[in-house]
């Protein structure tokens, strides 16, 4: 009994520094956002007062919130499947004995270690009307000049492409590691059975990669709600909120308009979305995933 008590004291003492920091900068802020979403933003003469669900009513009536939410869903739909499919293709290619394998792998992985803010500058230059590389290439084919980032129709696609480019190589390495861990005897057995390469991939490799796909998927979903650096550089949410994502809107409301209570309300929505992702992961996908 006393042994157990000492162990508990030791255990918590070891945990204390990390838990204190987490409590201060993760747990408490999450709870505080929730509490604050029921209060008004304090002004110079007027302290914050309880206003019930008013912030949420304001949010539901706010067209920019809905725009940011739908942009974010389209951004997620645009980045997640494409970057995962590309990552898998890259991994399968790099896993074979293709020419220049090391250099090719390096080329795919390089965007991962570059700062998003820096590559966003390069992409901005890439997309620049008249002057940029993309314009010069489309110009060769006689296409009309397009302001890729300045037009509501193309801006969200333009930033989605940047995100895919940044992520695919990062996800590739997880698939590569998983492919290399598949025992070669499985391939030999499948070949004896006369399975085609496609069948081997679809029926053996792909199912064995499911845990990796799940891991990559969760990362991709979180990233879809986290990546806003390139928006700060490339579009600032424009034109006319065409590229405003949820976290960027929180940043604008909290630090541009200093409406902290409304920003807290939006934060709660973001946290609820992330909690939903966690719930789907542990409650549903985990059970449907095959483990070796």
């Amino acid at each position, binding site marked *: 009994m006393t042994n157990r008590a000492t162990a508990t004291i030791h255990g918590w003492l*070891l945990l204390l520094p990390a838990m204190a920091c*987490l409590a201060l900068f993760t747990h408490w802020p999450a709870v505080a956002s929730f509490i604050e979403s029921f209060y008004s933003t304090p002004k110079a003469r007027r302290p914050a007062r309880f206003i019930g669900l008013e912030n949420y009513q304001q949010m539901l009536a706010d067209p920019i919130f809905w725009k940011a939410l739908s942009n974010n869903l389209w951004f997620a739909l645009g980045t997640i499947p494409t970057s995962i499919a590309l990552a898998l293709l890259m991994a399968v290619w790099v896993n074979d004995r293709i020419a220049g394998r090391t250099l090719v792998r390096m080329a795919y992985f390089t965007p991962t270690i*570059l700062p998003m803010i*820096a590559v966003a500058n390069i*992409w901005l230059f890439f997309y620049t009307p008249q002057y940029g590389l993309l314009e010069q290439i489309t110009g060769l084919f006689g296409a009309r000049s397009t302001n890729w980032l300045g037009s509501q129709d193309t801006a969200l696609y333009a930033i989605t492409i940047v995100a895919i480019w940044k992520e695919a190589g990062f996800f590739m390495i997880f698939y590569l590691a998983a492919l290399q861990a598949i025992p070669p005897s499985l391939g030999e057995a499948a070949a004896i059975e006369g399975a085609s390469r496609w069948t081997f991939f679809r029926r053996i490799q792909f199912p064995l990669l499911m845990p990796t796909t799940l891991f990559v998927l969760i990362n991709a979903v979180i990233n879809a709600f*986290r990546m806003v650096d390139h928006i700060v550089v490339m579009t600032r949410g424009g034109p006319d909120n065409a590229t405003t994502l949820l976290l960027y809107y929180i940043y604008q409301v909290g630090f541009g308009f200093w409406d902290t209570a409304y920003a807290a309300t939006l934060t709660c929505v973001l946290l609820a979305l992330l909690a939903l992702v966690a719930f789907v992961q542990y409650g549903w996908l985990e059970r449907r995933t095959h483990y070796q």
Partner: protein
Amino acid sequence: MSAAPHPAPAATRTDPYAPKGLALTLESTGAILLALLWVLPLAYAVWAAFHPAEYTTRFVLTAPLTLDNFTRAWAAAPFARYFLNTFILVTLILVFQIVLGTLAAYALARQDFWGRDVAFVLILAQLMIMPDALIVENYRTLAKVNLIDTIPAIALPYIASAFGIFLLRQTFKTVPKELDDAARVEGASPLQVLIRVYVPLAKPTYVAYGLVSVSYHWNNFLWPLLVTNSVESRPLTVGLQVFSSADQGIDWAVICAATLMTSAPLLVGFLLFQRQFVQSFMRAGIK
């Protein structure tokens, strides 16, 4: 990651599904075309940075090379100070992450005590609720203690890392219990056991985690942008943004030079230690 033991060295066995002949040529071509597409933005920046401004969008092989853009960028903004700030920042974060992470991971991996599982769940919560989502409240907290516009303010929300704790916990769990017991029999205290037995055995995990953490915080932008507003505390990423959005006319050659400069340390490190980088990111993801 620990690869499954292969019955024979992989090289001596032939993969029946490895493409040969035409299929291999087609696959190589596809892979190389995609690789070229992937390096195109970077290659474009390198071209612009090393040539005079009039060649920025004119691709002539005879264009003269120059370092002028780099000297102009270096002179136009206090990049030396930004480099120093970023260096201090990533070191500060890494040291704290490792110390706090090691202590917490040891408790979670090898101590059996009341409330351990609850603590573990509370820690893992940070994997979903990332500090980026809590910018408004964290700013308020740091403003209360007058830390805004300091390097510790950038570091504080990140020094306890659920990811690091989880990674180290998994590694510590693989350390044989007998080693632990043997050290204790010889009279070592729990902390001595941790430092003499566990930490040396987890060295590859520390290296992997260190590389991932340094790359992440070298590149981090939104939070440092919010909490800094002076040259003395700004890291490189924020400095680069201030530099390239300043209304000094858009000189792409100079902006590309500054962009390459800020990415250079990581890029050069990656080119030199490519295998180590790729394996570190793999190891960090698989655990």
